[in-house]
């Protein structure tokens, strides 16, 4: 009587064991890699807006400061989305009649705000305040990326909790002088080590890593 299992089953048995080990190690590893991938964090996905607004033109071309449109960023928890009336003064001379501008015209006539799409959004259980960050020397660029180079704005940061904590734990590595907060492509004039330490002292930046800092 021949053996119950033919010789080739030895190879299958070993291969399936190796496969099992690969699966046990590989699946969690793959999942951990996946949650960090831009697809999972929704980074770099351009968000189409009701109007083809190009930040490049406004920031680089016209040298408009972030705060001109995002007016409440230094005072309020939200940065502020410009109302239609912010666009109109400049554009009353140019473009107002163009087809691109149709939504703005409609908004103006109907007296209803433009429906801007949110690009960078945090979950409801996270408390976030723009004013405190800006006033403690966190640049817009640090979280929102090089908006001056984006035709259509996308989410630049992964927005994971670990990403938040990376700065909350070592703020000195990221802060910049308040005057430079809205600068794009900012480069520290002295080593960040020196500047960071000084600013942290000057602005009374604390290492806020308590759960209740953000989850209130």
């Amino acid at each position: 009587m021949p053996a119950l299992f033919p010789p080739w089953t030895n190879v299958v048995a070993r291969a399936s064991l190796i496969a099992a080990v690969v699966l046990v190690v590989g699946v969690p590893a793959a999942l951990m890699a996946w949650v960090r991938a831009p697809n999972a964090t929704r980074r770099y996905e351009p968000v189409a807006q009701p109007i083809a607004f190009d930040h490049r033109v406004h920031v680089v071309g016209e040298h408009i400061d972030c705060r001109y449109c995002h007016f409440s960023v230094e005072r309020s928890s939200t940065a502020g989305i410009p109302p239609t009336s912010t666009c109109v003064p400049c554009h009353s001379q140019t473009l107002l009649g163009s087809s691109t501008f149709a939504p703005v015209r409609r908004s103006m006539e109907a007296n209803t705000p433009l429906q801007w799409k949110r690009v960078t959004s945090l979950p409801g259980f996270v408390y976030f305040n723009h004013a405190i960050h800006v006033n403690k020397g966190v640049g817009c660029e640090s979280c929102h990326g090089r908006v001056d180079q984006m035709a259509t704005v996308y989410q630049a940061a992964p927005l994971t909790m670990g990403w938040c904590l990376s700065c909350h734990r070592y703020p000195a590595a990221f802060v910049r002088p308040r005057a430079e907060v809205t600068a794009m492509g900012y480069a520290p004039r002295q080593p960040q080590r020196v500047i960071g330490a000084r600013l942290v002292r000057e602005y009374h930046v604390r290492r806020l890593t308590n759960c209740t800092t953000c989850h209130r």
Partner: protein
Amino acid sequence: MSAAARPLVEQPPDREPWPVMRGEHPAAALTDHLLAPLWRSSPTWWLLFGLSSLGTLLLLFTVTYTVARGIGVWGNNIPVAWAFAITNFVWWIGIGHAGTFISAFLILLNQRWRGSINRVAEAMTIFALVNAALFPLLHLGRPWFFYWLIPYPATMGVWPNFKSALPWDVAAVTTYFTVSLLFWFLGLVPDLASARDRAPSRLKRLVYGVFAMGWRGSGFQWQRYRVAYVLLAALATPLVISVHSVVSLDFSIAQLPGWHSTIFPPYFVVGAIYSGLAMVFVLLLPLRRAFGLYDIVTEAHLSAMAKLMLAMGLMLAYSYVVEIFMSWYSADFAEQYTYLTARPAGPYAIAYWIMTVLNVVTPQLFWVRRFRTSTRVLFLASIGILVGMWMERFIIIVTSLNRDFLTSSWHIYMPTWVDWGILAGSLGLFGFLFLLFVRFVPSVAISEVKELSIELGRDGAELAGAAGDA
């Protein structure tokens, strides 16, 4: 009779000691007898299987309901944040202690009689752990985030807090489950090979052949096998002590009177083994009858385990006495109130007295030789002890919590139908898994029993002793 095959506990010397094995058993007949349940099933099995399947369905339903609606469907409410779920958790995990204790500790003591009962006890351990693990998971409220308790590089950038008992529990229970499973499987390999070689159909031969992994009983394999088996036993023994100690720390590292007590770790371990032995009896006695194992599981086994149970019961009683004394000695009002008033005379006094009587009085029966071998007494006493031990965990958890430091927040906990449903369902799942086990896995360690039978000269052959250099 060799020294290795003596029972754990000494027999009264003026009486004929019970044999650890009875009758003559040719190896082939013994193998076939012990493998027989794998090839056919009985109407009783189907009946029990049907019942336990219903229980499992009940569990499925109540768990789904809990997950869908949230744990608000349970009776827990502040200050009684822990109630049925944690009681069940501690109870089940305690039951899971006897298996590894019997198989690992007794192999270190060279007690060969363990071979007749260790498989059942180990299987019981694994299924009890499956049940135990369910409860803290459900209690998380969001069980799908259970992996947050494991230290892995999370995108959240935070880690479990290792100063809390919760990650200790995770470490202890997962380690215990894994090691129990490995130990169980390693012990099974030679028997699975026997099943492979005895199976009546080609399909069954193939299935058991896959799990037997090609075991062929070569001298080299046997020698290394014994080394690995003893190593695993040596590792499992301190592990078994650690697991319920860690579970006890869930309570004792808090500052709550009734929970905070330094004797908790050994006291919990003793109680765990106690309830586990009781569950072994509850499973083993019917199994002995159903599979005709009277020659293999003899009075020697029953008596030895009954004595072990008596010893555990006495140690438990010692803990009760010391705790009550110390609560008075502490001169601390809250301590005294918990132990001397709230428990014996509070709203859960009935449960307290049921616990005391069942846990302390029941085992005293086993001072009497006749009761140690009476299957009826053993079975009923074991049920009593299982109930008593469940009550003990309930008393520890609920009476410590329900009368909070502020009288204004006192709260009477009452379980809801979901609480009862999950408890009943978990018993169903346990039975379900155990019935599958006895139907598909050899429920006695065949090779060990054969070795014993050869050693006792009941095989007509002589065995020089165990192989290996361990």
